[in-house]
């Protein structure tokens, strides 16, 4: 679950991480009022969308009067913002965060994340923050500082002080950094986060350490113990079809191509998409049917494919096993085809548990299906069918 910047800052503030005074606004008037209420003589107006790299895309505007804050908000609100992380369509800006602009001397990078190879939470830091951090650290990995945290003790004062020193911080700023690192670690654990990224973390001219921008992602798997955080979910940020698919035990991501794909298992789905691409095809989606999916859920998922006007052909690649049987999938597909109508070629490869039964079900229901024995044959057939239909 992704959080907006303003939500992340609010959560971190509760744990003692300071950020500039700010307020959320949903209209130009609210934005001007917010500027007056928080005070100061310069403000940042920041589009609240679930994507990074906003500043370079015009999603962050600096203003010197409440009136210009209102103008900036008006240009952002209700418009789509396209950043390198939003995809070509961009994201609709429905709120802005108005924040005191802070004069600062240094920009630092600090993140907490799950270091998968260590199997622990780690703090990642660099002396210089900024939007190009990823490329910069990839080019010069020795600039990346890392502190792997023992879950039984958390970040110790000594470890935090050592990291602060490596970041070139001393005196009162180092003391603040130690407290901040411990607070970030605590917030990470208490909120069941999977990412907290403060970029930049700034040293202000007044000698304060402030989180200027924060990205925070919470672990969906832990939401059962965080009813207090459930309200932070902003469902309007997610593609409605993808959101609905989640309720039906489907992992569904829309892509730009013309071949509808339904596969069981993420690994096999990735492999199927790879194979289609290698054979010159262009998948319209990534759809992974979860093992516990029911017939009705498969029907729902298949209807998503049938309703997508971009699709010229559909490939179903099911390896029955575990709990998911091929006949369950076949029954779901047959129902969807009857209710929605099948207007494109359908290629089915059903292997594993009850694969033969699946073929019989589809044939007996009169669904026009081309069957394939192997993954390679299935891919070749659907790429050919999609190409023919497009031509």
């Amino acid at each position, binding site marked *: 679950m992704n959080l907006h910047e303003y939500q992340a800052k609010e959560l971190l503030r509760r744990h003692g991480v300071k950020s500039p005074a700010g307020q959320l606004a949903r209209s130009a008037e609210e934005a001007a009022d917010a500027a007056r209420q928080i005070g100061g003589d310069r403000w940042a107006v920041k589009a609240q969308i679930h994507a990074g790299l906003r500043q370079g895309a015009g999603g962050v505007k600096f203003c010197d009067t409440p009136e210009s804050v209102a103008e900036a908000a008006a240009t952002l609100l209700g418009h789509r913002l396209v950043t390198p992380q939003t995809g070509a369509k961009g994201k609709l800006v429905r709120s802005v965060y108005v924040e005191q602009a802070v004069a600062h001397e240094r920009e630092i990078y600090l993140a907490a994340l799950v270091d*998968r190879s260590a*199997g622990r939470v780690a703090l990642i830091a660099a002396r210089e923050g900024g939007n190009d951090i990823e490329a910069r650290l990839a080019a010069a990995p020795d600039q990346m500082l890392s502190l792997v945290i023992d879950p039984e003790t958390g970040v110790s004062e000594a470890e935090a002080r050592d990291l602060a020193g490596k970041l070139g911080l001393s005196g009162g700023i180092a003391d603040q950094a130690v407290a901040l690192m411990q607070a970030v670690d605590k917030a990470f654990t208490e909120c069941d986060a999977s990412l907290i990224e403060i970029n930049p973390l700034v040293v202000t001219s007044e000698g304060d350490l402030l989180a200027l921008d924060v*990205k925070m992602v919470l672990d969906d798997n832990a939401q059962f113990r965080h009813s207090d955080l459930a309200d932070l979910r902003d469902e309007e940020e997610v593609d409605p079809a993808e959101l609905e698919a989640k309720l039906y035990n489907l992992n569904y991501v829309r*892509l730009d191509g013309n071949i509808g794909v339904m596969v069981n298992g993420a690994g096999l789905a990735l492999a199927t998409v790879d*194979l289609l691409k*290698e054979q010159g095809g262009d998948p319209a989606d990534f759809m992974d049917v979860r093992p516990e999916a029911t017939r009705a859920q498969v029907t729902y998922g298949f209807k998503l494919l049938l309703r997508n006007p971009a699709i010229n052909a559909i490939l179903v690649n099911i390896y029955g096993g575990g709990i998911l049987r091929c006949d369950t999938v076949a029954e779901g597909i047959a129902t969807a085809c009857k209710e929605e109508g099948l207007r494109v070629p359908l290629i089915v490869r059903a292997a594993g548990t009850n694969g033969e039964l699946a073929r019989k079900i589809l044939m007996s229901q009169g669904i026009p299906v081309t069957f394939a024995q192997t993954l390679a044959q299935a891919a070749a057939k659907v790429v050919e069918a999609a190409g023919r239909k497009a031509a």
Partner: protein
Amino acid sequence: MAILIDSDTKVICQGFTGAQATYHMERAIAYGTKVVGGVVPGKGGRGHLGLPVFDTVAEARAATGATASAVFVPPRNAAAAIIESIDAGIELLVCVTERIPVLDMVRVKRRLEGSGTRLIGPNSQGILIPGRCKIGVMPAHLERPGKVGIASRSASLTSEVIEQISGQRLGQSTSIGIGGDPVHGMGFVDCLKLFFEDPNTECVVLLGEIGGSDEEEAAAYLSANPAPKPVVAYVAGLHAPTERRMGHAGTVNVFGQGDAAAKIAALSAAGVTIAPSPAEIGLTVRQTVRAA
């Protein structure tokens, strides 16, 4: 012979009486796995599938001599169940539970350190020794006894690859699903070490995917310790969409790791034979075994 388990390994099941556990443990028993009982807190003293049920792992272990456990406990209690088994001295755990909070797994991983327990999973399809025994949710379908060891991050892709390998008239020694979760027990390196020591494994197949660092770790290990047996790998996700992410460190963990091309390059540089397409993994294994 196989690695980690065999048909004389005594196995219990945590969460034994649940629907999924019942379905899969019945099949495991039919396949030849020596299941000796189950653990369900509050249901001790009852019977299930003709086997005794215990309240705790320690009781089950003392009464049955079990050394392995299949964990089918729902996500919110799964980590506690795993830790209970670590504390009770169970040697091998296979956890099939999906959607365990990642920080629970961080705590589990810490408890595994210095213990005598190996954990496969979570979110694992399990372990399968063709014709002898299995623990987990793997379908028994086209597997054949043989000498190819498989370690995989993906369940359905494993079935696909078993079919391809059997189709080449080769068989498998052991097939292990290390699980798809970000923090898990045994990794590719652990599996490689066991397969290299196993006299009955002649070739190892690694089935990887985007994200995580198991492939990079395997590559680093094989660069430092040249493989005594041929290793074949396939990494899924070369054409997965990458633009959907948030923040700089969201999907690309600790910068630079995780993308399929980088994983393939690292494995290839470490002497691993890369299957050129997911449809040609079996063929690549056969060619590699022949050449060795």
